[in-house]
């Protein structure tokens, strides 16, 4: 399936970025499963959304506190999430844990390109303005701030514009 995506994308991208772009969204599972089996991801998403709201990670004020160095909260959240993720990944590799479908778990290395700098800075600007990364946008809408739909639509438009201009941007 990986190969599938790459072949389709090949006309534009022969030399850079294909892997690391896809590493964000690639479905490494080779299995074709019916739609309803995705309920597990919805349940995980619900748990995730609850944590987002309960820990006030989706609060514009908390994000401001982070960038003004007025609170340790967000640094603690991201830092401890990375530590737990790091240990889990080490255990998965060391114990060769397989997925529930019995497939070996694969990690794809990301390739460096200038997009991580330019795009990273742009996202940073947007993060401080909206007080939300993509995940919290969905949680904010769910929590009742329906006007954030505008921000989400604008983010989708931004992604679309990136796709449109991609060949002309430095990578």
């Amino acid at each position, binding site marked *: 399936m990986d190969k599938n*995506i790459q072949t389709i994308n090949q006309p534009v991208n022969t030399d850079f970025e294909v892997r690391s772009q896809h590493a964000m969204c690639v479905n490494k599972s080779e299995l074709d499963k019916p739609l309803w089996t995705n309920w597990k991801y919805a349940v995980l998403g*619900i748990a995730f959304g609850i944590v987002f709201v309960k820990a006030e990670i989706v609060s514009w*004020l908390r994000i401001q506190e982070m960038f003004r160095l007025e609170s340790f909260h967000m640094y603690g959240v991201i830092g401890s*999430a990375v530590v*737990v993720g790091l240990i889990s990944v080490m255990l998965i590799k060391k114990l060769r844990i397989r997925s529930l479908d019995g497939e070996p778990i694969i990690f794809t290395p*990301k390739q460096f390109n200038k997009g991580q700098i330019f795009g990273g800075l742009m996202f940073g600007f947007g993060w401080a303005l909206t007080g939300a990364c993509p995940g919290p*946008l*969905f949680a904010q809408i*769910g929590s009742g701030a329906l006007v954030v739909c505008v921000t989400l639509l604008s983010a989708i438009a*931004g992604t679309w514009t990136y796709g449109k201009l991609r060949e002309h941007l430095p990578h």
Partner: protein
Amino acid sequence: MLEFISKPWPWYVAGPLIGLTVPALLIIGNKSFGISSSLRHMCAACLPANIPFFQYDWKKEVWNLFFVAGILVGGFLAAHFLANPEPMQIHPDLMADLAKNNITDNRHLVPADLFSWQALTTARGLIMMVAGGFLVGFGTRYAGGCTSGHAIMGLSTLQWPSLVATCCFMAGGFIMTHLLLPYILAL
């Protein structure tokens, strides 16, 4: 117990729970944690417009859309059934600075002074919601990921490009907050 649940959760509870999403997704279905790609799948599904970047079988990545739909429902459940009745505990300096621009709402996760349908008709609201959202969508895809894909998944797997991206996310946030936002808030 119920009291603990309704209070804001501290970082040492929320952070590890978020970190556990990484092995949970890997074990459930061999999926790499990442949220911003959901925006790409929406483009691929709704308006691919012959753009090569959106020519792929988004249906194979539909798990990601289920995941973000779950986040939306989770946000609803937490806000309606587990809500904290108290105002948020925000650093007094931040509230004092914001009060200069008539922003005083510390009861909502999304301050109503800044993000509302009415605010959308002002220059400040347009910049913060429309331009801000655009930068989030464009920037995350250009960088190849967001806080979840780069900062959490990328750093958990020790990828140095993700460290570069994470540092740039933070640098962008600091630049905006300290150099530009004071002028935007005063609009």
